């Protein structure tokens, strides 16, 4: 076992037996855990009256940092955490002993130490020691303090208490309380940062999933958005943050199409028209066959002679971009494709022409 800055470090004994304090500190630094950085640069507010306790808090944070960055070899320092809680309780009571707040602070610190002595309980509870001015100014409360866990535990300092509650060094209780919170709260920093980074990674994945949806999925009208939200509502109400829906729904969704039919004279077989998807569904990412796919009940309108202008049928959607369908126009069959397919052919045609030109140059 080694003692570094007043804290027994079991971890270093296991991995650095025979090494001196300097080597051990270097090893701590190797995990990027700031052990060589002065305390004043590791905390948001420097404690004036509990500097020793603040050092202990930073040490605990460093131990957590090392254990979290080296999970294979190190266990979380839950024993050291419990000891820190007792140290905090003891140091607080030394300072507030004899003041009018002694009993309330003893109760608050007892709860704090008990919370940190979690044993095998998971997840770890690492609350702040809070000292807070009330939300709205009040005649009978200057500040309140405690830790926010299941049991409501807010102790109040009244103006009278604040006037009379002065320790042996003539520091007011409210000033001491704020300072106590500055000293204690750095203990949880590494654990908080570690967990926040994990959550950040998870949320970034969801963020990327949403971006893929908006880049790739079929475009939707407001009505489509509303209908999809109603049908897929359970996905959004799972009680936690989620990625995009798996299915899009379409109602009265218009499209520009190109219709083909052999029921008319040659030269007039291809004609632009409009389609309305009465009701459709599209798996924008992974469909039933592992690819984006969808289908709609469709009506197509095309203004031409020789065939009914209106036909009813179905449309299939592929890869969120291409649609092909069939309708029955009276006694005739007609087929249609979406404008996106035309764009694909046009692009391919342009590519082919470029290639042909290059080949011709070589000849």
């Amino acid at each position: 076992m080694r003692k570094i800055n007043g804290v027994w470090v079991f971890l270093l004994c296991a991995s650095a037996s025979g090494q001196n304090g300097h080597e051990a500190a270097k090893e701590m630094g190797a995990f990027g855990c700031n052990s060589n950085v002065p305390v004043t640069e590791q905390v948001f507010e420097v404690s004036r009256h509990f500097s020793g306790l603040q050092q202990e808090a930073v040490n605990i944070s460093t131990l957590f940092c090392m254990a979290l960055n080296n999970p294979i070899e190190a266990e979380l320092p839950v024993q050291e955490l419990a000891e820190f809680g007792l140290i905090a309780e003891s140091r607080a009571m030394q300072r507030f002993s004899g003041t009018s707040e002694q009993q309330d602070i003893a109760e608050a610190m007892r709860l704090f130490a008990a919370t940190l002595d979690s044993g095998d309980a998971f997840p770890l509870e690492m609350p702040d020691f809070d000292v807070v001015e009330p939300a709205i100014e009040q005649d009978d409360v200057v500040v309140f303090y405690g830790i926010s866990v299941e049991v409501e535990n807010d102790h109040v300092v009244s103006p009278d208490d604040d006037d009379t509650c002065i320790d042996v060094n003539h520091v007011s209780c409210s000033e001491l309380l704020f300072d106590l919170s500055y000293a204690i709260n750095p203990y949880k920093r590494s654990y908080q940062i570690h967990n926040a980074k994990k959550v950040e990674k998870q949320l970034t994945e969801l963020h990327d999933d949403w971006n893929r949806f908006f880049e790739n999925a079929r475009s939707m009208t407001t009505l489509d958005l509303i209908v999809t939200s109603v049908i897929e509502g359970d996905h959004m109400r799972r009680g936690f943050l989620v990625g995009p829906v798996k299915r899009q729904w379409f109602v009265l969704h218009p499209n520009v199409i190109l219709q083909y039919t052999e029921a008319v004279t040659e030269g007039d077989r291809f004609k632009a028209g409009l389609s309305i998807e009465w009701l459709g569904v599209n798996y924008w990412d992974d469909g039933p066959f592992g690819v984006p796919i969808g289908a709609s009940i469709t009506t197509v309108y095309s203004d031409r002679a020789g065939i009914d202008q209106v036909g009813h049928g179905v449309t299939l959607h592929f890869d969120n971009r291409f649609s092909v369908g069939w309708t029955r126009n009276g006694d005739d069959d007609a087929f249609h494709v979406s404008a996106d397919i035309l764009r694909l052919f046009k692009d391919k045609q342009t590519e082919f022409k470029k290639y042909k030109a290059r080949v011709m140059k070589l000849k």
Partner: protein
Amino acid sequence: MPNKPVVLLVHGMGSHTPPKVAKGKLGSFGEEFVAASNKALNRYPQHVDDKITDHLEIVEFNYDEFFDEIRKKMQENAGMSARVEAVANLAGGNFAAGLVGKLVAWEARFGDDEFFYTHVLDVIFYSTFIGGKIRVDLALALTKLIEEFGNKRVHIVAHSLGTAVVFDTLNLMYRSEHDPNDVIPDLSVVNDQFESLWMVANVSSLLNFVARLGDPLNSDTTVKPGAGGCTKTFYNVRHKLDPFTWPGRFNPENDGDWISTRAYKLRYGSIVNDLVIDANTHSFAQYIEDPNVAVPLFKRLFKFKATDNQRRAAEEDHASQSIQGAFSLLKEEFADLEITDTGSIDEFLTAAENIRAAIDGIANNL
């Protein structure tokens, strides 16, 4: 280590230019907050030359830019709807022209009606499933701030529709079943409580009827101050004559139901304004400039202090800018608006349009 606390701003309905983070430039909502805060702060002699940015960092969460992209895409589609209507007419109305007509009329408002385009659509979009993306992005912004600043130096200020976005996000983000080792991204109500939450013109209760992601007044919600909650202090701010805060108003009683009576007394602040500086009583700047809001806000953000005399002087200065007779005039005008407490989104949108018309009319007479 950052040495100032940070405020995460979340805007409401309407057009809000995004911040240019790389250049360190705020967007329009951030600028509005800074201007209003500076005006309020400079009323006090010890802060007469201060800028709010001397005391805190500001991070803006902008979702309007994303909604703008959606709006533009839909406007492109709206032209197609007009063609559908033309074909329907051509076909002699045989093709369910009524249904198509409704669709066209709905989407034809894009670009024709600026208020609809910039305000009402925000509410509609957020209420659909694409609100899920907004919530994920806001959660990501908050998590990064807790990582950088620590939970006790993070504050959130939300306005109007932003209060619904914030409520829904926090309710899903802070979970009592939090387990840091599972696949669900969430934060702990014990370990990660941030310092204060400011809900200005709070419509979270209203929009909850639509999205049904959680009830702001339910004791099970984690969007509350104190034990089991995401924040240490919670402020609800409204103006008596802000009609957006009438339907489905967030107004918890001190009966131990939402939070304990002790937490209600110490950790919850209900702030109600009644001075009218601007006929648009929903204006975010008007809320922030009012000493009723500015003083507790600054105290919470950076331990602002002022003597009783200084505060009285600031209040008198603010009151001197109020529009004489405005309160009565607005009250009379809004009395004709039929806004009930049903909390339907249709009510909300109708109210929005009526309010806009009323304010336009009143502003000309004041």
